[in-house]
């Protein structure tokens, strides 16, 4: 990253205030986003563990279901084809997606559409019916878990993306926006100090010039008085004026104004 990047502003007290307000806002935004990122992260951890647990269970249940399937075939004969052929026009088991809000992120959740109902309509599998029913029940259990797994997976993907985005914004604030604002504040303050110093020295210069002018005006005035006093022949004034010409301190009030 290159060095001091600042915002383009005219250094003045007003902009300084504006920048300070900006810094405050940015810091607040940063804190909020960081909280959000942390919340998402902890949720993510929970989901990850859940996924692993459900996956294990699915593995076991599927194995059991497979065994029951084999059993059922033993009893009822090869019914695979029959089942496949008698597929209905519309599936009995459907899922619907509900939207839930987690840490400010909208995530979809899958649910069995129409509630948890084990509807049974099989065609012509009379022999070994009990085994087939057991087999079906086993697969239904697997299916329910798979729907949960699908929900968890979508939550995982959605939250993962949301976390990446939020984290990016947090980093952007932390490494780009806030430093930039702080540099700008520093720049404005430096400029203001500089301007104050210039102002100070400028005023001092003006003061010096004014003092010089005042001293000159003083001198001129005294010279004038000396001249008029010489013309009038007033020795007192002459001595006072000459003292003044020498530069001694004397009070104009000392002279009697005739």
């Amino acid at each position, binding site marked *: 990253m290159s060095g001091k990047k600042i915002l383009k502003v005219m250094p003045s007290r007003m902009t300084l205030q504006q920048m300070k307000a900006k810094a405050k806002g940015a810091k607040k935004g940063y804190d909020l986003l960081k909280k959000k990122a942390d919340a998402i992260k902890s949720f993510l951890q929970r989901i*990850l563990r859940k996924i692993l647990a459900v996956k294990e269970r699915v593995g076991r249940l599927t194995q059991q279901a497979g065994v029951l*399937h084999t059993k059922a075939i033993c009893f009822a004969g090869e019914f695979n084809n029959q089942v*496949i052929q008698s597929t209905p*026009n519309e599936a009995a088991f459907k899922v619907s997606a509900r939207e839930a809000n987690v840490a400010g992120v909208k995530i979809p959740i899958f649910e069995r559409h129409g509630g948890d109902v084990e509807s049974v309509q099989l065609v012509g599998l009379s022999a070994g019916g009990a085994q*087939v029913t057991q087999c079906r029940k*086993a697969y239904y259990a697997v*299916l329910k878990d798979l729907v949960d*797994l699908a929900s968890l997976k979508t939550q995982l993907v959605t939250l993962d993306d949301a976390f990446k985005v939020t984290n990016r914004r947090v980093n952007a604030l932390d490494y780009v926006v806030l430093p930039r604002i702080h540099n700008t504040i520093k720049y404005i303050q430096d400029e203001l100090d500089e301007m104050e110093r210039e102002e100070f020295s400028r005023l001092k210069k003006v003061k010096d010039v004014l003092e010089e002018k005042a001293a000159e005006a003083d001198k001129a005035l005294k010279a004038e008085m000396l001249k008029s006093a010489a013309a009038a022949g007033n020795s007192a004034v002459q001595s006072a004026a000459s003292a003044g010409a020498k530069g001694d301190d004397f009070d104009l009030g000392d002279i009697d104004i005739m």
Partner: protein
Amino acid sequence: MDEKKRPKAGLVAVIGDEDTVTGFLLAGIGQRDPRGQSNFLVCDQNTTRQKISTTFREFVSRLDISIILVTQDIALEIRKEIDEHNEVIPTVLEIPSKSAKYDKAKDSIVRRVYRLLGKDLEEEIHREKTQTQKS
């Protein structure tokens, strides 16, 4: 992805061997409309990768399918298509099958989970193997 056009209730599709597909059909996910379009594909050793890939893509593009179940051995064949599929819906799940024993290492979801957790998958599997050997 036009979420608004999706029907309220979506289907569960399945791509796998005959036994697996039959099992899930028994549970009620199967559907075949009058035109012959169905939400499942039975695969055997003669099924070409092309057919699997095409069917998978078709299921993904169908708006009425929300979940796609793929047995792990078939998932390995179309790993590329599955990895390319980045959308939230439809969700793709890998399931074990009778023939293919469930292999944790090859499950894409499990791998992602481990990566996010920061744990080492190989290490975990090795540990499990030695545990079962001991017992």
